[in-house]
């Protein structure tokens, strides 16, 4: 077998490929969180939802042999957690941040408990589309092997953007996030809107979790997420609650996450763990540079407990 070496060109290619692969869970979680936050609530529990989705998706794929059924079940576990968050937050004097942290711990805890038997077995993976068939280089072909879920996520971005502007549901969600008083005055139930938005956000986060266990890295273990759900929440703030910017930000974070492995592939193994910390450093740096004590966050839904 003949390998066409790419040498140093492999680094940007690997970063691009990594950006696409690693960004998918970021994309799904951040779109879900974007929807939830636009309705006026913050769900920090999405980290737990993500892990729960990863576990349930993997388990169902292993037990039934259908990875797509796994994705659907992962989504439904997300709906369950989202609805739980939404219901608890509908009670008077409940803080959404505190509930979110509780659900984050609960979600990871349940996933670890129920997921113990699935750490060893191999489940069927999600299929990918080979967009690199034209190339002789194995590296190029690997890089352009793109998962269907990523494409679904890409389609979701304009769909969400369009819905926020052009559908009743989109406008109602924005209204609930911006002025609960006005929403009530128009006769809508703010609680119901937020409950549904949180549940839908949970669905997307659950699907993002299924991607982790069923495609990349593609196995179920307890260190699978390592805080990606939480970073995605920060990413929504950085993206100023705009789905399109959520997409770019996800790619950026994905690329940063791929930096370590990409450098390793060309033989730079020193500071491997330092490069792996790139997404976290990036989160901090971006937050510092995009925030200002002299300006308020433009585009922030006014009903969010952190902006109120």
């Amino acid at each position, binding site marked *: 077998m003949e390998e066409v070496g790419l040498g140093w060109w492999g680094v940007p290619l690997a970063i691009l490929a990594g950006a696409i692969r690693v960004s998918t869970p970021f994309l799904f979680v951040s779109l879900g969180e974007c929807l939830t936050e636009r309705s006026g609530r913050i769900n920090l529990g999405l980290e737990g939802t993500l892990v729960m989705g990863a576990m349930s998706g993997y388990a169902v794929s292993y037990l039934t042999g259908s990875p797509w059924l796994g994705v659907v079940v992962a989504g439904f576990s997300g709906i369950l957690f989202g609805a739980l968050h939404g219901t608890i937050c509908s009670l008077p004097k409940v803080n959404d941040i505190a509930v979110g942290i509780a659900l984050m711990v609960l979600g990871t805890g349940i996933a670890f408990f129920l997921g113990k038997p699935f750490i060893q077995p191999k489940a069927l993976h999600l299929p990918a589309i080979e967009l690199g068939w034209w190339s002789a280089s194995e590296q190029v072909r690997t890089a352009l092997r793109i998962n269907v879920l990523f494409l679904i996520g890409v389609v979701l971005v304009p769909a969400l953007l369009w819905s926020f*502007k*052009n*559908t*009743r*549901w989109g*406008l*109602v969600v*924005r*209204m609930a996030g*911006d*002025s609960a*008083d*006005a*929403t009530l*005055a*128009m*006769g809508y139930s703010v609680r119901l809107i937020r409950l549904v938005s949180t549940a839908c956000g949970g669905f997307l986060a659950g699907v993002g979790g299924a991607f982790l266990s069923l495609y990349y890295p593609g196995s179920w273990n307890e260190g699978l997420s390592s805080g990606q759900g939480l970073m995605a929440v920060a990413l929504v703030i950085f993206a100023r609650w705009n789905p399109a910017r959520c997409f770019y930000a996800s790619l950026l974070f994905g690329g940063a996450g791929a930096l370590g492995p990409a450098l390793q592939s060309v033989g730079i193994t020193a500071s491997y763990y330092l490069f792996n910390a790139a997404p976290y450093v990036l989160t901090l740096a971006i937050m510092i540079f995009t925030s*200002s004590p*002299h*300006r*308020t966050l*433009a*585009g922030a*839904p*006014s009903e969010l407990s952190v902006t109120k």
Partner: protein
Amino acid sequence: MSSAIGIDIVGMTKRFGPLVALDHVTLKVAPGRVHALLGENGAGKSTLVKCVIGYYQADQGDLFLAGQRRKMLSPRDAHAVGIGMVYQHFTLVPNMTVAENLVMARASVPFKINWRREREKIDSFLQKTPFGVRLDDPVTDLAAGEKQKVEILKQLYLERRFLILDEPTSVLTPGEADEVLGILKDMATNGDITVLMITHKLREVSAFAERVAVLRSGRLVGEGDVSDLDVHDMASMMIGSRTLPTPVDREARAFPPTTSRQGLQIRGLSADDDAGAKALREVDLTVQAGEIVGIAGVSGNGQRELVETLAGQRNASGGKILVHGETYQATRREMAAKGVFCLPEEPLRNACVPAMSVAENLSLRAFDRRPLAWRQWWLRKGAIRQMARQQIARYNIKPPIPEMPIASLSGGNVQRAVLARELAPEVTLLVVANPCFGLDIVAVAEVRRALLEARNRGVSVLLVSEDLDEILELSDRVVVMFNGKLVYETPIEDADLAVIGRRMAGH
């Protein structure tokens, strides 16, 4: 457009626990007219209209619409028969555009919104009304006057034929108020709508209303055609047997206006607003001792940023401030040493800690000094309570309980409490912004009297107000602020309302 409707209120009574907020009020509101509902804070005006709109349920009494008895169980019932209300606080969604707000206000919104068709509908509706608004601007970018116009537009767009307005002009300049009320009056005269507006501005009643009803302590104490009543009649109906504080005369200035008496000097001051845009552009201003300088202007032209910069709530981006000839950077130490005090607008939000008690709020300026503190760190609760009792008695703050959280006081009482704190004996420079916003007629007279007394004592007063009448009544010198700059200045003797109005609009 459909024609106006009228309502009859018969024997309406509403109790909140032991408090009788409305006491058998009977009022006929004829169609196609502008009706004014006058009364002080707490007279029952809001309660009455909230019973009409279905926000509250009256304990007794009936509402008739075209001779038919109606029960309004919720605002929805009122909306269904064409009664709409514009609330004192805005009910628009801030981050949505004007067009989006109008569409979402409708009772039924299609699942997919066809923006081209909606725009055509709104445009043709706008052509029938005399309001001009920019449909694609987010509401948060609009000035208060424009927001109020959109609120009214929203009601008209929903084909409401009976409009209740709760102090519609409280955040508007006189020019904006005249414009909005003039349009409403014309529409009423055309028979398109009936207007019932709550107000305590007598000038607006005499200029725009045809009928007036006066409430006091929940009772209807007077009613009549505006043409039969003068301002004095209406004021005495509102006040009843109580007397207004006698106005203070503007004494000849206690000090000659020399440079050594300059209280506040602002040199080339610039500052940014919350979004980072330039709000103050190289402002130069001097306020001498014993002088009130009034800053007129439409809200949102940099007045808020100016007051916040002077109060230490905002950093200047350029220029400097001198107080008594020395540099001033709005630190707590400087404020105390130089006697700088400030009554900002919305004092509950800008100058109070809402959950703290009245006594604690009254002590915020001096709690770390003698006599309220021992060696600057141990608070003497007894002294604080005693000081609070004195201030409460002196400024007539109700209820007179020092331990009450200040957020539970009415707007007028919060205003009086902050004024009590800021009019300390050591004040030499006082910055006040809209000091009479939302106050009743007696409270307004009290506040204005206090400001004039301070001036006569030699205090430099910088008065920022959106109420031109207030500026003309109190100021020694008037300056006009537009787009972050001071564009006009005149001594009060030469002040011409028409010129000031034009400058406020940027001409």
